[in-house]
């Protein structure tokens, strides 16, 4: 499956963040301090008009993150 189709198929799914190890430290810290920490549920809600960034929902809050960051997350699917 292409990367595009893979992300499209993720829309609406709910994942649990296992770790953010793959993100560089400074990025990790900014994720942590915004409440994005391992154990939280994350849901890919939408893809913005030009394909990037992605709109995600964590802790009942909406964030826009780029695809690179999304691919840094270590995720485990919980439910659709």
């Amino acid at each position, binding site marked *: 499956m292409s990367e595009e189709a893979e992300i499209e198929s993720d829309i609406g799914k709910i994942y649990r963040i296992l770790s953010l190890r793959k993100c560089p430290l*400074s990025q990790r810290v900014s994720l942590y*301090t915004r409440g994005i920490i391992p154990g939280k549920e994350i849901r890919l809600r939408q893809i913005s008009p030009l394909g990037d960034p992605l709109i995600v929902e964590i802790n009942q*809050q909406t964030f826009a993150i780029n695809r690179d960051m999304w691919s840094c997350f270590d995720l485990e699917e919980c439910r659709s």
Partner: protein
Amino acid sequence: MSSKEIRVGIIGNPNVGKTYLFNRLTACESCVGNWSGVTQTACKAKSKQGGHYEVLDFPGCHAIREYKPDIAHQDSVHDLEQQIDNNQIDVWLNVIDIEHLEKQLYLTVQLLEAKQRVIVVLNRIDRLPAISKNIDIQQLGKFLNTPIVKVSAKLGLGIRALQSTIEDHLNVEQQKHDHYPVQYHASIERLLTKTETQLGHQATRFSAWSALIASDYSEKPPAWHFEPAIAERMHPQHLMTDEMTLTRFEIIQRWMHHVVTKKAATRQHADKHWDHWFLHKWLGLPLFFSMMLLVFWISMGVGQLLQGVVEPLLRMLVIDVPGLLCRDFAVPQVMALLITQGIGLSIMTALSFFPILYVMFLALHTLEESGYMTRAAVVMDRLMRWCHLPGESLVALVLGLGCNVPGILATRHIPNHNDKVVTALMMPFMSCGARLTIFAVFSSVFFPQHAAVVLFILYVLGISIAVFTGILARYTGLVQATNAETYLLELPAYQWPSLTVGLRQAYQRSQRFVMNAFAIILPVCCILALCNHIDIQGNFLQIPGDQSIIASIGKGLGVLFAPIGLTAEHWPLIVSLLMGLLAKEVVISTLSIFYMQMTDPLQQTVGTLATLWQSNLAEALENAQRWYAYFLPFIQTETPNWALYFNQQHISPQAVMGYLIFTLLYFPCVSTLYATARQVGWRWAGFSVLWSTLVAYLCAFTYQMVVQIPLPLYDALWLISLGGLCYAVATGLKWFIRSKKAESAPPQVAP
């Protein structure tokens, strides 16, 4: 209480309502908006209550020492950290949005660890019913060991209680205690104590923590990496930063289990619904452009309507009546000239911006407050990535559409310096409010049928050139792109904007703009009026014209401007372009001085006070009755009297278009130059002046070439060769920059 000024600091995550609270506690009216990063620098003011303490509003931050400590761009956070390190704030009001308690308590914990006196302010309690959460405040207070006050800064609820809590807190001597809300693992606690002792007697547990996490960024591992007790505790891929941050969150989450009893997400559903459309794959971009068009259409319509009603009355008050009095009291001519054409005209010019700016700021405020502005940054992000810029750049650029100066100042929110430089280089091409006035006047005279279309085309041209500049800067390697681009933007919840706050904020912004503009316009108007009435020999001219000093300068420069369609006979337009370097607000006033005095020279002020009143009032009423005309793009909008002097004999529409293109693209004004230099340095500011002026000249010239010579083949050839020339220059520049960089790079060491 001591004689030293008592300082109360407001701190909290971005967009939680700190500035709303600041405005409630003081008599200030600082800018608020529903997006992160509205407040860029700390503001301070005396408290309303007797004014015996000072309140400071700090820019929002998620944590203290969030990033590498040596990153210079985090200057606002650095400011804040210094205040904490030096204990300069007597009490902190830590504002927390009640909807997102958990993540925001992180900063509270950090403040308590840094031994600061904190009052937790739970804001947005008006939202409690909607989010159906029960928060046990007493329990939270016990965990944190701090006073907690519930407020709604927006509605003004709980402010009294907060004020008395601040008073009480300031009156109580701070108890020395060693209670910290978070206890780390025993091995890490030991390490903290050890580091604290190593740092000397001034050190605190917080400074020990700072030193420990700073070592995470250093190349070589610190000694404790090899301590077995810590190594055993820590996850192999975790650093001290991860360990400590996650421990804090673990404890906060434990508190939350006791404090928050009922949860339901209701708001998300509404937000999701709106986001579905505003961030829609196909509709997102058209909606963005329609929104922008709507803002400009409404501001132009309502703004010009107000202008049409107010201007005749204002003209009577500041020009006609003083002129009449000067005539009746036989005031010397030079004096009369300065009173009417200097002071009077400058007041009128400065105030005539007010309606358009006011409505434009109100419309922009509505977009910001509703939460759409951040979505706009998201929609445009990918587009901005072509120039390797973050979405924040777009927010700065959109602000630049109001006035380039705040736009440039907003670039300080962009984390990377190079991105800041590129945004600053793009900024002069964003057509500001002052240029809008010029376009509006000219397009209503020369293109009455298509005024709105001309305006739209000019805006789009400006934006396209800005994007082109961004791409070119990156392509040539003039400003290097950053590799790891992090994009993490919090989308604020949608909300209905408050009309009263919007009206007040728009008034503040436009009033500030008009006052600043007036300070420049007044001397310019006085000097111009004199130069326009004095010839090279120093004689006073009754009717200004070809003989005046200014006319001679303008005519002399005619040769330079001939390729863009302006010849010596258009000297007033050429002079207005030069004056526009001071401020674009001056362009119209310059033209009004020249042309009004040509059509309605000073000595022609006739009539009595009664007739003046009657005629001006009639004009204002007539304009009010034709209110609908201002909203229809194809009906002629009201134009100033002097502008009617322009006619096809004096200047052709093609030359006007050349003039407008040049005005759109050449460097905006000295204030923008200064702001650019402050943000990115004088070298880039100088480059920006040269680049924008060159682009303006080339574009206006190209337009003339294409229009004057109606041969499609010739035009196509010209455009292709110009494109080719640009490409060749860009490639040459790219090659030159690369070779320069290669030269300055350290030589490779042979293996």
